[in-house]
């Protein structure tokens, strides 16, 4: 079968007006870069949000008493009043293939006071050894060391330290309500300072050994509010939560094993929403580019009316003229895609590996309870990028359709006679 000559003619035609070809190709190329970059940046933001939402201070899975959320009552411990076999539960959780760490937690609320300054606080009781394997916010600490059980030590957020003007070694008073109705209060020493970047969390959360908090609020050692679980990847959390739900047995009261998608449905929806926006971005960017290309091609075909008239007069079919114009458009698309890719992908790889700081633009942001740091971090999204490439070529073709149709309908005799 004889090869169609139109692609070759189209390719050669690109050289007839190099400046115009270059400008058109750059227009398309910039559009392509914009798509890839915006999608990649958005992907990076989503990855960071999910990572921070699930490993900075929470786990990918949380286990509570069925009544615990959303009120978070001091009394709704796992297993209720009778408590639970915490060690047994942790062993069963650790045995799951997707689980990399699990840690028990106790929560209480109250006041944190130092001298004249007092603020509202949330007390978080942790098992320091297990907690550092699960979350990132205590390792490394901004200052000091992790609290040691039984020594009335605690760790506070940097923002709380600033607000109460306390540092490592200073004394703090915690006041709360005991589970027996008593006024729980005691004196503690600040052993360390952590920093998550989430200002509200850093300003309010006091971290202490779980036994010390249980003693303060008069809870037995087998009464905990939560077991936080980390899976190897956020994506594994849903299935692992279902498995654990079937394995874990707390006879006294029902428990809930929830993955991060259930605990933070807004974040999960937000991530899904961002994915759907990628399409919108691609369509909008190339729609804008399409009009620019259409204009250029229209001018180009108008200038070459006589050329097309000669072709038609010599016996070329209108279809052949359409073929030439479309081939030319496709060739421009291919050139711009190649040129843009050479520039875009190394840049994306560089941004992925060494995201520059955007601190001059904005500070830490907390979105749906997840921290977002100011960096130009990108993520890879190969399907979206592939669709952007297809979009570029389609744009080039579609925007040349009208000019091609116009060129094919040129009346040869009238045009050649100068009419």
């Amino acid at each position, binding site marked *: 079968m004889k090869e169609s000559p139109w692609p070759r003619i189209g390719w050669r035609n690109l050289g007839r007006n190099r400046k115009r070809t270059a400008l058109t190709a750059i227009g398309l190329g910039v559009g392509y870069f914009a798509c890839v970059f915006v999608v990649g940046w958005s992907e990076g933001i989503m990855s960071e949000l999910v990572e921070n939402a699930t490993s900075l201070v929470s786990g990918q899975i949380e286990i509570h008493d069925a009544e615990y959320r959303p009120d978070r009552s001091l*009394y709704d411990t796992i297993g209720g009043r009778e408590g639970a076999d915490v060690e047994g539960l942790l062993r069963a959780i650790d045995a799951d293939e997707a689980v990399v760490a699990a840690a028990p937690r106790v929560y209480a609320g109250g*006041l944190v*006071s130092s001298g*004249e300054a*007092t*603020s*509202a606080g949330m007390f978080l009781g942790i098992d320091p050894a297990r907690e550092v394997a699960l979350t990132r916010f205590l390792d490394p600490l901004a200052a000091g060391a992790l609290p040691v059980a039984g020594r009335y030590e605690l760790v506070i957020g940097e923002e709380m330290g600033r607000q109460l003007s306390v540092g490592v070694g200073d004394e703090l*008073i915690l*006041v709360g*309500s005991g*589970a*027996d*109705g*008593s*006024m729980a*209060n*005691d*004196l503690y020493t600040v052993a360390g300072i952590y920093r998550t970047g989430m200002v509200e969390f850093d300003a309010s959360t006091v971290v202490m050994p779980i036994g010390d908090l249980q003693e303060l609020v008069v809870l037995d050692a087998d009464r905990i509010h939560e077991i936080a679980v980390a899976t190897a990847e956020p994506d594994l959390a849903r299935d692992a939560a279902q498995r654990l739900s079937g394995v874990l047995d707390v006879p006294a009261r029902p428990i809930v094993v929830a993955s991060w998608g259930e605990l933070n449905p807004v974040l999960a929806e937000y991530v899904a929403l961002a994915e759907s926006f990628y399409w919108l971005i691609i369509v909008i960017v190339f729609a804008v580019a399409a009009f620019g290309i259409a204009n250029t091609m229209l001018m180009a075909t108008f200038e070459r009316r006589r050329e097309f008239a000669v072709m038609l007069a010599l016996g070329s079919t209108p279809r052949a003229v359409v073929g030439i114009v479309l081939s030319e458009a496709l060739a421009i698309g291919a050139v711009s895609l190649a040129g843009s890719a050479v520039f875009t992908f190394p840049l994306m790889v560089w941004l992925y590996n060494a995201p520059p700081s955007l601190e001059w633009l904005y500070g830490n942001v907390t979105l749906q309870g997840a921290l977002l740091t100011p960096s130009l971090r990108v993520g890879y999204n190969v399907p979206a990028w592939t669709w952007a490439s297809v979009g570029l070529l389609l744009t080039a073709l579609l925007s040349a359709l009208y000019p091609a149709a116009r060129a094919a309908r040129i009346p040869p005799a009238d045009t050649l006679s100068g009419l």
Partner: protein
Amino acid sequence: MSGLRARFLLPFVAVVAAVAAQAPAPAFAQSDPIAIIDRVDRMLRGDSSHGTMTMEVVTENWDRSMTMEVWSLGTDYSLVRVQAPRREAGTATLKAEDDIWNYLPKVDRSIKIPASMMGGSWMGSHFTNDDLVKESRLIDDYDIEIAFEGEADGVAVWDFLLTPKPEAPVVWGSIEYRIRQGDYMPLWTRFYDEDGELARTMEHSAFTEMDGRLLPAVMNMYPADKPGERTTMRYEDIEFDIDVEPSFFSLRNLQGGRGRRR
């Protein structure tokens, strides 16, 4: 000024301070709601007071009872010190104008309650810290009208409806307040949230003559969202118009533990 505050929002101070209850009630021909409430308030509060009360708190998870010694001066100052149980003895609360301080004997420190925690429970009861402070502002913050005047349960009563004035910094959507016409004794107060839902009910009972005044010696607070829970305040004894200066209500005295006036 004056009015509802002491009595139902700051029970201890309120009742503690009561006035000459036995005064015959001159008929308020026009039934001026502010005048009536002001009179009731004066009757119950007095200029200053000193007494002993017990507070019983019943919750789903625990019950407890505390005995407290209470001093008050006007609406701006009060001092409450726990006497029993022994484990909590010495724990004290000082209200000085808009500030509330708690003294914690276990750590020997006083803590000022921050604005963000004013809605928190006062000593584990169903009263909030805000109740101690805001009680002195009810008349200022609410428009008062008589919603009902006549017989209820065989007793002549006034029912007052308090609605917040525009821009008033209050937490309640409205308050209903019933007063017995015969002796100006408060019967109950109902607090509604901004959606018009009943949030809590305070009932007064055991009308007893103490230090020459008729007082509701018992006050029960029932939170609407926690059926079965209540806080009961009972005056064991009280004396009015004692000799006490504003300087008595100091941080030093809060921590002092002696708690002797004069």
